[in-house]
């Protein structure tokens, strides 16, 4: 590990990771709508420069055909390639769900281990920029509920690069979620980022009183909430999950065993969300050690609205995380 750092953002970090993987392994391919430089190198420029550097055979813009994109990625992967497919927005995965869920996720199992599908499916998503109901959803729970898929959602540039390197190297299909609101944020990241193992959360800050668990954009709000709580004398242990499936039970349970309190926050609707799985596991494993019920924060059970006035109420706010953490401190323990 080098101690040298630089200012960067998530777009550049993912671009560097893919370029590094393509440089190291001629089997790594990129495909998706508008990904080649002739089309601008991706809708927000994540793949910019790759087709010029690695050629049009390895970096292919596709028609607007999500099933064909994922199908092509799956087939090429079955014969030894490592395609990184871009589905522009997470909502558009719905058009390719047969390819993702019935095929990419299951072909290893249904073939008794004969055919693996080492693909990465990248996608942007997130509310808060007034994109309305069909361009903003966090659907990670659907994918996490599907055996055979891995689901990754970094919150910062270093993790984005390190996790992308691991996803490309992974023998199984990975869903890679890029958070739209944090895309342009500047992060301090090491110059030389190492691959970050999948399934490993990051204990960002140690604390005594309450554990806050989050991922993707909302993690940044959890971080802000933790700072506020510290000012108010509440010691927060902060965990960035980074990988949603498989999730790092060990790190989360060890932390909650210590603090006795847990708050989980994510952008997706709260009902049937990732937070429910984590809360249930904490309850099963740590029932006797809990000092308060596990708190879950997510969006209300409604589609993402267009109007900014409504959209601001849709997203979990830092103040809500603060309030939820404080509420866990007020529970009287028998």
């Amino acid at each position, binding site marked *: 590990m080098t101690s040298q750092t630089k200012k960067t953002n998530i777009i550049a970090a993912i671009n560097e990771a893919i370029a590094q993987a393509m440089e190291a392994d001629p089997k790594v391919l990129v495909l998706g709508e508008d990904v080649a430089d002739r089309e601008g190198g991706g809708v927000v420029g994540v793949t910019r420069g790759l087709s010029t550097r690695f050629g049009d055979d390895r970096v292919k813009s596709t028609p607007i055909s999500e*099933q*064909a994109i994922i199908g092509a990625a799956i*087939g090429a992967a079955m*014969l030894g390639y490592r395609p990184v497919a871009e589905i522009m927005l997470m909502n558009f995965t719905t058009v390719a769900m047969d*390819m993702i869920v019935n095929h990419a996720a299951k072909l290893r199992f249904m073939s*008794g281990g004969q055919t693996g599908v080492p693909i990465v499916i990248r996608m942007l998503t997130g509310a808060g920029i007034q994109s309305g109901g069909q361009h903003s959803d966090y659907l990670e729970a659907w994918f996490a509920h599907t055996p055979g898929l891995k689901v990754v959602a970094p919150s910062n540039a270093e993790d984005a690069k390190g996790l992308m390197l691991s996803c490309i190297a*992974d023998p199984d299909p990975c869903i890679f979620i890029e958070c739209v609101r944090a895309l342009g944020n500047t992060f301090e990241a090491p110059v030389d980022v190492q691959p970050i193992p999948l399934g490993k959360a990051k204990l960002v800050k140690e604390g005594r009183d309450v554990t806050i668990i989050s991922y993707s954009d909302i993690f940044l709000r959890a971080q802000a909430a933790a700072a506020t709580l510290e000012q108010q004398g509440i010691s927060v242990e902060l965990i960035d999950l980074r990988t949603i499936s498989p999730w790092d039970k060990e790190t989360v349970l060890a932390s909650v065993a210590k603090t006795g309190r847990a708050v989980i926050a994510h952008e997706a609707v709260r009902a049937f969300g990732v937070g429910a799985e984590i809360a249930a596991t904490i309850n099963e494993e740590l029932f006797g050690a809990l000092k308060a019920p596990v708190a879950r924060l997510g969006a209300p059970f409604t589609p993402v609205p267009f109007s900014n006035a409504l959209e601001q109420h849709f997203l979990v706010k830092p103040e809500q995380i603060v309030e939820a953490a404080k509420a866990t401190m007020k529970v009287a323990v028998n």
Partner: protein
Amino acid sequence: MSSAADFTQTNQTTPDAATQVEMYRRMTLIKQNDEASRKVIRSGRLLMPYYSPRGQEVIPCAVSVNLNDDDTICTIYRGIHDMLAKGVPLKALWAEIAGRITGTCKGKGGPMHITHPSSGAMLTTGVVGSSMPIANGLAWAQKLDGSRRITVAYFGDGATNIGAFHESLNLASLWKLPVVFVCQNNRFAEHTRYENCTSVDQISKRAVAYGMPGVTVDGNDPFAMYAAAREAIARARDGAGPTLIEAMTFRFFGHVFGDDDSYMSKEEKAAAISRDPVPAFRAKLIADGIATAEQLAAMEAKIADDIEEAIKFALSSEVPPPEELLRDVYAEGGA
């Protein structure tokens, strides 16, 4: 097994004598295997969803004798004929159908998900239309490899009304992929007659929309089917892109074993069965002096024995141990 490599360098469009006999052998294998499958299910020895390919034998046999072992295919739930024609071994196939650990997929795929990469059989999908997008990916890899390998995607007429067909043909044509789309038009999409669910009188016309050659051929005529497959496969191998072949055929039975096939016309079905392509080709081989009745009878007896032996092997094999339930969800040693 005869290898297509023997003739790929020539322009011949009529199969030579050895190839004709080999086509008949594969057709007979499929026909007998179907008869054995229905018998085994009817007797209660096996429980499985079974989609009979009876009546459609000629198509994959005429295609496969033009393929090499390392060419790849993708097919659908009605695909056991495609798998057998490509050379998936009978014992492993039966063991898979029986849900045994000795099956192609350790009993974890079943009859609707036969996979056997060492025979080039890469995918059997249970979803209508889904063989095509993945066939494109295999063909893309074969093209990137700089190989002369190709991929065949099999599907039915019903699949040409699903989005995946249209997305796949467009992409294959755009990228000039070495893929052959073989539509086995058996006149029924599950229970619905072709004309009640399809907007064109010939599926091959849809090729025009994607800038690729499209041809309608009598899929029950071994020579016509052979010639059409040979031309399309040569085009793919030569880097000239995909072809859509509409192979006309007829399904002798209902959609799935045990269904009430009252939606099929009895007269139409009887007429199709009276033109059964397998005995018809047998008669032709004998009439043309390609093989003698004794030679073919010996071949048929051998196939019957092989099937009987495969069934015995399957039914006497172990079932998968419980730990197989959680194995192969992810790669061993993966995160």
